[in-house]
Structures are given as structure tokens and as C-alpha cells.
């Protein structure tokens, strides 16, 4: 390789390194922000779960309508959450892999969130009930609201017997796992686990402790449990889907951060080895020149 070519390569490698480093920094900030949002949603989620528990103690039949499978309907609705963009390590492929194995056991229609999910569903020729792409990082409630509404309506009409959500669960910056959760019929234990797990396994937000759950006091319910349940159920479904989106965003950003960090490290390594090669080539050229000159001088003598 000529000296000029090597030099060009070094420059371009360094430039790539700068880009990946900037992306790493951006992802780090975004990750922190999404984690904060996930934590802010916890108060809400915890209270909603607590209310569900109180109501189910008082009036089981009103709750049972939402917690038990009423029909023998095996059609499932899968809310598949992925990101829009790549360059984020194995986040999307992990989710889609789990979706593959999930589809072998269930027949599903899809609600797709994120471009990769839409592409996946289209590739499989599945029915897409609703799709949502370009969801901003600061997931707004409006985004989630109509997804929730669609899912709830379809469930109430009996089109689907079960509603699942599949997303990448955020455990820590270096560890994420794809996860399927049943949203409808409601699963009180599952919801409680979800609320508990909103805190990541390690990192800045890991050390917040859970406060004791309220006592089992007798509640007055107004107007009545039957009338209150729809509101509460829609809130709980809201929580579950919103939470999935937030978790996925946190996973995406941390995976991208790690991937970009690796890319930055690699670009530094390559730039170093190229510099070595460049110096060697330059030295070889100088040595050759010197030996030519000395040879020429010796010939003249």
C-alpha cells in the first residue's frame, strides 16, 4: 500500500471514530432520560395495581370479567415493540427471535411499534391491526393512548382472547432480555412483578427500595366496582404498554451506547495499527533512498 493510501485510511478511520463516539454520548444521555421516565411512571403503576387488588378483594365478579379468559378464543393480539433504527447491537434481532418462537405456539395478529416490527410482520404475511413508527424518545401519552384503545376494544369485542406485549426488557446497561407479557386478561401477579421490576438490576436507579403495600382496609367504592373497572383496566393496560415502550427505548439506547463504544474502541485500534504500518512504510522508503545514495556515492569513488 502506498503512503498516501495509508494516510487516507487513517484519516477516514479517525473520522468514523469521532462519529461513533458522538453517537455513544448521545445514547448515554438518552438512556438516562428514559430511565428517569420509567421511574416516574412507577407511582402511577403501583397505585393502579393496588387499587385493582383492593377491588378484587371486595368484588371478585366485577374483576373476574377482566382477569379470566371468558371465551375459548385462541386468537392472540401481539403488541410487538422494536426500534426504528439499527446500529444498536442485538436489540431488535433478539426481540424478533423471540417473536419467531412465540409465533410457533400462537396464532397472532400484530400491533407493530417501530419500523423493524412492521418489516417483520410484513415479511411473515401477518395481519397488522395497527402500526406506529417514528415514536419519539419522549414517548408521549397520546402515542400510547390510541394503541391501548385499539387493543382494549378488540379484546372487548371478543376478536382476540389474549393480548400480549413483546419487547426488550431493560435489566442494566449491559444486559437486556426480550420478554413476552400478557396484558389482557389482566394478570394481577404479573402486573405486580412488572411494577417491582421497573427498577433496573443495577445502575443509578437500582437502589430505590419498595415501600410497603397498603393495608387491606375495607374500601368504599363509588359509583360501583362494575362501573369503575373499565377506567382502571384501561389505566392498567396503558401502564403495561407505556412501560413496554419505555423499557424498550432504554434498552435500545443502552445497547446502542455499548455498540458505539465498541466501534469507537475498534476504530482507535485500527488507527493505531495503520499508523504503525504508515511509519514502517515511510521508514522503508527512507532507508531505500539512503542506500541508493550511498550506493551511488560508492560507485563514483
Amino acid at each position, binding site marked *: 500500500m502506498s503512503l498516501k493510501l495509508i494516510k487516507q485510511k487513517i484519516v477516514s478511520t479517525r473520522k468514523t471514530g469521532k462519529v461513533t463516539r458522538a453517537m455513544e454520548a448521545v445514547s448515554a444521555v438518552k438512556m438516562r432520560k428514559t430511565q428517569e*421516565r420509567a421511574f*416516574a*411512571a412507577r*407511582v*402511577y403503576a403501583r*397505585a*393502579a395495581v*393496588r*387499587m385493582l387488588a*383492593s*377491588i378484587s378483594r371486595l368484588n371478585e365478579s366485577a374483576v373476574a370479567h377482566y382477569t379470566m379468559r371468558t371465551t375459548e378464543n385462541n386468537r392472540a393480539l401481539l403488541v410487538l415493540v422494536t426500534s426504528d433504527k439499527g446500529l444498536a447491537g442485538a436489540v431488535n434481532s433478539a426481540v424478533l427471535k423471540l417473536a419467531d418462537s412465540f409465533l410457533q405456539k400462537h396464532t397472532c395478529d400484530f400491533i407493530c411499534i417501530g419500523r423493524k416490527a412492521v418489516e417483520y410482520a410484513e415479511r411473515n404475511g401477518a395481519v397488522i391491526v395497527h402500526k406506529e413508527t417514528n415514536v419519539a424518545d419522549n*414517548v*408521549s*401519552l397520546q402515542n*400510547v393512548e390510541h394503541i391501548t384503545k385499539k387493543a382494549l376494544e378488540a379484546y372487548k369485542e371478543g376478536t382476540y382472547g389474549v393480548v400480549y406485549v413483546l419487547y426488550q426488557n431493560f435489566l442494566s446497561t449491559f444486559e437486556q432480555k426480550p420478554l413476552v407479557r400478557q396484558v389482557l386478561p389482566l394478570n394481577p401477579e404479573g402486573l405486580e412483578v412488572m411494577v417491582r421490576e421497573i427498577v433496573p438490576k443495577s445502575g443509578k436507579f437500582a437502589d430505590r427500595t419498595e415501600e410497603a403495600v*397498603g*393495608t387491606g*382496609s*375495607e*374500601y*368504599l*367504592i*363509588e*359509583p360501583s366496582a362494575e*362501573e*369503575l373497572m373499565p*377506567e*382502571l383496566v384501561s*389505566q392498567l393496560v*396503558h*401502564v403495561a404498554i*407505556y412501560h413496554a415502550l419505555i423499557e424498550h427505548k432504554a434498552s435500545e439506547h443502552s445497547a446502542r451506547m455499548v455498540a458505539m463504544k465498541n466501534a469507537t474502541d475498534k476504530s482507535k485500534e485500527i488507527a493505531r495499527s495503520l499508523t504503525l504500518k504508515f511509519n514502517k512504510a515511510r521508514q522503508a522508503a527512507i532507508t531505500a533512498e539512503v542506500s541508493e545514495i550511498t550506493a551511488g556515492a560508492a560507485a563514483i569513488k
Partner: protein
Amino acid sequence: MKTFHLTIASLDKSVFDGFVTRVTVPGSEGEMTILADHVPLISRLSAGTITCTDAAGDHTFAVTHGVLEVGASRATILI
């Protein structure tokens, strides 16, 4: 006056969190005011404004729908 802990939370943020002496909410069966030591209650809220009073004065929040839960010495409103 006796105070109790009030939390008003929407899904993406905590709207209010502190000790108040009273809170007035638009319940589905009509407006009601909650004071400390209220009997445990779960109620649906209709559209209107929530007014709570603490040491600093009155605070008002608009709601379109929500759920109120009153427990022992605390109240939670989800909007």
C-alpha cells in the same frame, strides 16, 4: 389542621406530591372534599378541576378523567 399525604400522578410524571389539609375533586357522583382520616374510598373522577390546600395555599389541576383512592392517611389520584 390535620394533614394527609396526597399524590397526584399522571403516567409520565408526578403532578403533585405533598402534605395537604384538604382536597376537592370532581367525583363521578358529584364534587367532594376529602379531609384527613377520611374513610377508605375508591372513586372514579369526571372532568373538572382538583383543588388542594396546603401550607402554601391552594393548588388547582385540571382533569378529564381519573381514579381517586383514599387510604389510611394518604390519598392517590391517577389522572
